[in-house]
C-alpha cells in the first residue's frame, strides 16, 4: 500500500494512448469531410428537421440527394412579418461548375402548404431567384437544385415573428390589391452577364385554407422570348406571399423578355420588358 506512485502509471499511459488514438481517429474521419465541406453526401440534415425525410421522399423521390453549400438560401434570421418573408436563392456557383440545372424546388418544412415553387430555368433562366413567402411558424426553408441526376439541397432556418414595440403586418397590410388587382409591373436591369427582372403582380394569393375564402392564387409564371418561345417557367403555390414580387435572373437577350402569369381562376396577365 505504501509503494510510491510512479509518475507514469500503466493506467495513465493507457488513458493517454486512448485519448491520442481517439484524436487520431477523429482526425482521419474529419479530414475528408473538411476537404469536401461543400458537398455532404450523408443523409444527416444540417437543419435537423424531423420533416426532412418526409419531404425528401415526396419532392425528390429516390434520386440521389446531397446537401450542398453552393445552394445558398438567404433570408432574414426571423420573420418580421409572417405574411411577407423575403427569401433569395443563389446556386450560381453550382451552375457554373457542371451540367445545366433543370429544376429547382423549394419548400417550407412546417407550412400547411409546404411547397413554394418549382422553377424550370430551361434555356434562359439562371439559377438565382428571389421572392417573398408566408411562414406559418419558425421553420427550415429548403431549396433543392437538380443538376444531372442529383438533387443539391441547401436551406436556412427562419425564426418566427419578431414584433417588438410595433405590430407586424398592420401598417403594411397587403389589402390594397382590390383596387389594383391584376396589375403586373416589371423592370429590367441589364449587365454583361445577366438581365435581372424585377416583377410584381397585384394578387391576393388566397390559399383557400381560411374557411369562407376560396383558393384564389397565381399558379404559374412563364418567360417568353420575343418570338413567343417559352424560355423559363415558374410554378408557385399559395405559400408565396400576396402580391408576388419576383426577382428573376436571365441570360442577356437583346430584345428582353415577356412575362406571363396565370391564376387558378383562369385570369391571365402579361408584360413585356426590354433592356
Amino acid at each position: 500500500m505504501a509503494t510510491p506512485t510512479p509518475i507514469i502509471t500503466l493506467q495513465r499511459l493507457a488513458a493517454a494512448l486512448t485519448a491520442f488514438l481517439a484524436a487520431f481517429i477523429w482526425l482521419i474521419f474529419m479530414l475528408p469531410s473538411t476537404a469536401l465541406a461543400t458537398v455532404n453526401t450523408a443523409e444527416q440534415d444540417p437543419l435537423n428537421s424531423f420533416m426532412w425525410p418526409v419531404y425528401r421522399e415526396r419532392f425528390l423521390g429516390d434520386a440521389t440527394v446531397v446537401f450542398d453549400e453552393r445552394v445558398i438560401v438567404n433570408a432574414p434570421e426571423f420573420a418580421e412579418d409572417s405574411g411577407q418573408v423575403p427569401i433569395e436563392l443563389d446556386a450560381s456557383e453550382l451552375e457554373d461548375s457542371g451540367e445545366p440545372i433543370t429544376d429547382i424546388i423549394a419548400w417550407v418544412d412546417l407550412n400547411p402548404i409546404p411547397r413554394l415553387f418549382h422553377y424550370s430555368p430551361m434555356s434562359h433562366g439562371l439559377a438565382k431567384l428571389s421572392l417573398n413567402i408566408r411562414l406559418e411558424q419558425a421553420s427550415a426553408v429548403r431549396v433543392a437544385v437538380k443538376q444531372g441526376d442529383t438533387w443539391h439541397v441547401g436551406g436556412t432556418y427562419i425564426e418566427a415573428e419578431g414584433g417588438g414595440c410595433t405590430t407586424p403586418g398592420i401598417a403594411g397590410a397587403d389589402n390594397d390589391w382590390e383596387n389594383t388587382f391584376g396589375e403586373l409591373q416589371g423592370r429590367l436591369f441589364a449587365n454583361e452577364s445577366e438581365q435581372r427582372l424585377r416583377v410584381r403582380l397585384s394578387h391576393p394569393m388566397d390559399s383557400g385554407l381560411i374557411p369562407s375564402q376560396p383558393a384564389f392564387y397565381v399558379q404559374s409564371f412563364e418567360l417568353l422570348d420575343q418570338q413567343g418561345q417559352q424560355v423559363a417557367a415558374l410554378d408557385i403555390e399559395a405559400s408565396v406571399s400576396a402580391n408576388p414580387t419576383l426577382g428573376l435572373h436571365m441570360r442577356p437577350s437583346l430584345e428582353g423578355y415577356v412575362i406571363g402569369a396565370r391564376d387558378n381562376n383562369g385570369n391571365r396577365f402579361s408584360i413585356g420588358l426590354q433592356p
Partner: protein
Amino acid sequence: MKTRFLAGLALLTTPLAASEPVMFCERPLTAQPIAENTWMVEGLREELSTSNCGHIGNQAFIATPNGTILIDSGSSPHFGEALKTLIAQHSSHPVRWVLNTHHHPDHFFGNAAFDEAEHLTLASTRALMARDREALIDNIERLTGRNLARSHIALPDTIEAGEVTLGSYPLMLYAMSGHSGGDLVIMDHSTDVLFLGDMGFYQRAAATAHSPGLQQWQEELNELRGLNARIAVPGHGPSAPPETVFDQTAHYLAWLDQHLSDVANEGLGANHALAVEIPDAFNTIALTKYEFTRSVVQLYPRYEARLLWGTPQ
C-alpha cells in the same frame, strides 16, 4: 447654471422619506433627475421579452404645484403601478395628467394605473391606438409572457398641439409623425427639457415600422433642432444634449434611407439590402442588427413601390 441645481433638487419638492426601492421585474426601478422637478425613468435597451417584463421604453415626470405630469406610462398596467409608487417617492403631488407620445404599447399601456388622472394624446395618435389596440395587446402578451387586463387598456382623450397649460404649468406641444404616424413632442420652456418620445432614439436603434417615411422623420428632427432645448429625453436610451440625440437618430435614418434606395434602384431584393455591413458608428448602438433587419423587411417593399413601380408613398 441650470446644470448646477441638481444637487439641491431633492429639497425643492417634498418626497416621501427615503423608502424601500421600488421593484419591477426583480430589478429596482429608478428615477433620474434631469432638471428642476423633472425626472426620467429609463427602460432597458432591449426588445420586449419575458426577462424585462416589457420595461423597454422611457417615462418622464414633472412635479408641478398642481399635480404631477407624466409623459408615457410603460407597457402594462402592472408596470404603471410600480411607476406610480416610484413617482410618489419624488413628488408630493399625485399624477394628474398623463401625456402619451404615441401609440406604441410601451408608451401607453401603463395608463390604467393612473385612473384618477387625465390621459391625453394627439388625435392622430388616438386614431392609431384605436386601429392597433388589439394587435398590440396580443403582441405584448406574446412577447412578455404576461396577461394584460385587456379591458383596462383604454384610449386617452385628445389634446391639440400648441401651447397648453396643465394646472398652471405651461408646455409646448408639437404634432409630428416621423416615427409612428402620430408623435407628440413636448417642450418644457421652464426647464428647457425636450421630451421626444420615439422621435428620438439614443444608444438604442430606431424602430421604423410605422414611419410614414424616413425622410419625413429627418425633416421633423431638423425642425426640432430649432427649439434650443438644453436636454432631450428620447423614447429609448439615456437623456443627452438634444444635438447628440438628433445627430445619432438622423445619421442612422439617413444611412438607412440611402441604403434602401440604392439597393431598390438596382433591382435587387430585400436580402441584398440585409447583406450590407452596418457602419461601425451604428454597431455600438444597442439592437442595431435587430432593428436593421426589421426595418429592411418592413420598408423595402415601400422603396420598391416608389422607385420601381412609381407608386406614391
